[in-house]
């Protein structure tokens, strides 16, 4: 059994979704970690969940980044521990410097809450090893600031090192402007760090775990993680 620690900030609202996905769907151990704690409770994986930490004041994730728990997360990541930041969690990882770049308001200026398609751009990561290259997943998004931006050098570094894990695409896997829900540069939906143990993604795999709510494709992300941890699991 793998241990997942799910951070809880004031304003987190996908912490319970992540807990449900890990514990009830995947059957693994899940623990909530309040943001003022420094003990991560010996996790195999840390999930920085979605929501509106600190009301998104100043910038999304900017204040959560200084919560005591984040020092422990940075230390855990630097030792090679698996960290996944979803939506606001991705924004927090950007602000904390664990991942490069920043998030702007969606180009359409609307909060986007809908199902999108993602193309698996790299299967070489602990988060995507259960997919095949180019595999299209259906996963929901729910964000107002998911317009990923990085400079030309930053984009090149991501591309050259195969660090773009997911791009927004249409149902057939074509990367188009129409399929881009927020204006993110190069249709980027998810990236990993250089060491490939930290992933940030705007879409919500933890909300695509059961067919009753539209998709089970999110399970592939969790199955990949378990696979990376040496645990076999049916996706």
């Amino acid at each position, binding site marked *: 059994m793998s241990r997942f620690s799910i951070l809880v900030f004031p304003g987190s609202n996908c912490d319970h979704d992540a807990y449900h996905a890990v514990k009830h769907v995947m059957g693994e151990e899940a623990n909530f970690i309040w943001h003022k704690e420094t003990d991560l409770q010996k996790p195999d994986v840390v999930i920085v969940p979605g929501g509106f930490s600190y009301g998104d004041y100043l910038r999304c994730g900017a204040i959560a980044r*200084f919560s005591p728990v984040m020092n422990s997360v940075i230390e855990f990541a630097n030792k090679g521990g698996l960290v996944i930041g979803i939506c606001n969690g991705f924004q927090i990882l950007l602000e904390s410097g664990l991942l490069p770049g920043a998030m*702007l308001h969606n180009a359409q*200026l609307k909060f986007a809450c809908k199902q999108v398609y993602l193309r698996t751009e790299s299967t070489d990561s602990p988060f995507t090893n259960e997919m095949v290259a180019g595999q299209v997943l259906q996963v929901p998004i729910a964000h107002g600031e998911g317009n990923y931006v990085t400079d030309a050098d930053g984009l090149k570094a991501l591309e050259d090192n195969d660090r773009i894990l997911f791009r927004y695409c249409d149902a057939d896997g074509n990367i188009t402007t129409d399929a881009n829900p927020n204006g993110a540069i190069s249709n980027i939906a998810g990236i990993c760090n250089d060491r490939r143990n930290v992933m940030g993604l705007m879409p919500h795999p933890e909300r695509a775990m059961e067919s009753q709510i539209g998709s089970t494709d999110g399970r592939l992300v969790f199955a990949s993680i378990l696979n990376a941890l040496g645990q076999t699991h049916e996706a």
Partner: protein
Amino acid sequence: MFTAHINITLRPSILDPKGKAAGEALSHLGYDAIRSVRIGKFIQLTIDATSTEQAHQLAKEACEKLLANEVMEDFTIEIEAR
């Protein structure tokens, strides 16, 4: 005591969706002379410091560590003695 007046703006190379929307609204109102709108933030700090230089240094650190994200934003600081 000093007051720091901080302006934070998106870098020129970064698109500003909010500014663009406001610019389009102004255009609809007939303000054709207004060519573009860029929206930023204004932050005011009250600082205990012994000199303008020290106040400026503290404000700069605050911007670099928290108030601005230099991946996408630039900032300017003006210090006023009170």
